[in-house]
């Protein structure tokens, strides 16, 4: 059998598939960030904490209310999204006229507070959350064992990403949103309630983070810092894709997952750095990001 750089191709396919799965998480999370930045001009540092809340609320629903994984996929994003809307109305909306830095500092502070509160209540070790029985087990693909749940994660995130992209780029509602970003005063003059639209957009971005949190709960450790560990990488993904670019966030999310997966085979020690190396190169060559428009 032939080998590719010392790795049998079958192992390589396996790793590429795993990379794609990680890419799904990057894609959903960076999509939420990109939407919020694109339409609100807020760098939402609380995104990781909101992702963590998604995973925690799935646990809360299961433990205290006996509500399982499938309903949680819908209910949790609604709850956390509503929570996001409250944050937007009471705090974030006051900062729109100020520099980006203020929004960043506020959401960073919020993230620390949310993580601290959860840690205080549930401790740092985390909480158990099992894979739903319908998706337990896996398929032998010949070159690797693919757990059913991982397959589901890729499908679910692809659907959500594409639906979001479609709504924003191809529908009338999306056109209003994009117009409101360009010129809120003018759009308001046409009788559209711009503040409400912005509020709902933030809520939607937060709900996306929570959705990723529910998807992550059965496979990753559900602990207060789970979002903080991931958010830095996701920010790098957004920067590479181009701040605020919807398509860029999706494509780079999946793409970087693949590249990271390959690094884990060829040189595992570098796998946590590779994304930042790419970010540095992209910023040097194309400062607006791969899909971003130069300001």
């Amino acid at each position, binding site marked *: 059998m032939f080998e590719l750089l010392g790795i049998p191709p079958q192992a390589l396919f396996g790793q590429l598939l795993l990379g794609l799965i*990680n890419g799904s998480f990057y894609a959903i999370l960076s999509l939420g960030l990109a939407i919020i930045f694109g339409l609100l001009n807020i760098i939402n540092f609380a995104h990781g904490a909101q992702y963590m809340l998604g995973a925690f609320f799935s646990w809360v629903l299961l433990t205290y209310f006996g509500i399982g994984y499938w309903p949680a996929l819908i209910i949790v994003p609604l709850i956390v999204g509503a929570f996001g809307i409250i944050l937007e109305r009471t705090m974030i909306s006051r900062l729109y006229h100020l520099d980006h830095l203020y929004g960043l500092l506020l959401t960073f502070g919020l993230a620390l507070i949310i993580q601290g509160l959860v840690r205080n209540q549930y*401790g740092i070790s985390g909480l158990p959350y099992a894979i739903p029985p319908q998706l337990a087990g896996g398929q032998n693909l010949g070159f690797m064992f693919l*757990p059913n749940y991982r397959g589901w994660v890729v499908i679910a995130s692809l659907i959500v990403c594409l639906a979001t992209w479609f709504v924003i780029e191809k529908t009338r509602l999306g056109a209003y949103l994009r117009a409101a970003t360009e010129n809120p005063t003018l759009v308001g003059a046409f009788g559209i309630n711009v503040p409400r639209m912005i509020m709902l957009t933030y809520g939607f971005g937060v709900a996306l983070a929570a959705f990723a949190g529910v998807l992550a709960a059965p496979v990753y450790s559900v*602990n207060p810092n789970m979002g903080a*560990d991931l958010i830095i990488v996701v920010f790098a993904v957004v920067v590479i894709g181009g701040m605020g670019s919807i398509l860029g966030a999706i494509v780079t999310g999946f793409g970087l997952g693949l590249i990271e997966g390959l690094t*884990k085979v060829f040189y595992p020690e570098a796998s*946590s750095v590779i994304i930042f190396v790419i970010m540095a190169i992209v910023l040097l060559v194309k400062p607006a990001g791969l899909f971003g428009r130069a300001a």
Partner: protein
Amino acid sequence: MKTKALGLAALSALLLTGAAYATDVKIGVMNDRSGIYSDISGEGSVVAAQLAVEDFKAKDKGINVTIVSADHQNKPDVGSNIARQWYDTESVDVIADVPTSSVALAINDITKEKNKVFINSGAASSDLTGSKCSPNTIHWTYDTWQLAHGTGSAMVANGGKSWFFLTADYAFGHALERDVSAVVKASGGEVIGSVKTPFPGTDFSSFLLQAQASGAQVIGLANAGGDTINSIKQASEFGITQGGQAIAGLLVFINDIHALGLQVAQGLVLTSSFYWDLNDGTREWSARYEEKMGKKPSMVQAGVYGGVLHYLKAVEAVGDKDATKVLAKMKEMPTDDPLFGKGAVRVDGRAIHDSYLFRVKKPEDSKGPWDLYETVATTPADKAFRPLADGGCSLVK
């Protein structure tokens, strides 16, 4: 916490006026109160120290004990500052707990310089009683040598001859892999590969797949905390244990298993110095602890109890809190408490007691949320820790 400490101080001041010849002892419990080790140590260790004072009936014996606590945030510089402040201006006599080896090694030096007492429970590094040993340090609960030998040799003896390591890519992970590899080879096994995983990591599936493809009988997890939880959770997802490969957790605490749930963690083999359900003594004490903390104690918290209790017994026996005399007494008296049983403190500062190899129960065998382990083997105190002569400690002649 400060008000509590002040209250205790005021209380002991009041008592002091009552008993004219009382000894005042101040114990500083220093650990991680907000970060990754806050569940295994944290406030629980303070509660354990309070229980030790309660059980010792310190007041009746004319010893006024004050307990203070602080968060070292897992940073050696923060820990060093607190230790100096405690020793220099707040007349702290003993520092207890201190997880995170780098902080523990810093406190080890400061305590020696100030000639006070350091009872470590939370740190793993066996250097504390080896090349970095100090006459003022007692290492109570566990260390890397014990973990490596406990789990490593037991797995090889049970037929796990070939090993593959998932190693957290920093000093602790490398040291653990090195120690366990040595044990595996010495016991007649072989190491067929290892992969260094970035720390901290979230997704271990790629590394687990490499371990699976290696065909090793045992996959050793030379990592800790969230890394361990994530790797075990994902190993279960990829059907690794069902495929016949065993997973060996090399530093696993009961809080980790509780966080994983039995469905995922079942079958995992691990070494520990303490489990709440060992005997009547541990059950009774853990029930009292649970009343205050709402969960069962980890071995680190139990170790704070054992260490503080032994210290207080030595203070009583000496009738003074002079560090040199008390330390000599602690090493001379045998140790005996309900949690660790009978043992001793060696000249290098290593407290020795039995060590246990546990297997995580199947969900159907568990009777409650903390009913997690079954005992596979018990290593007697004199075999559980590194032989005195092998540590390279300068105090050993």
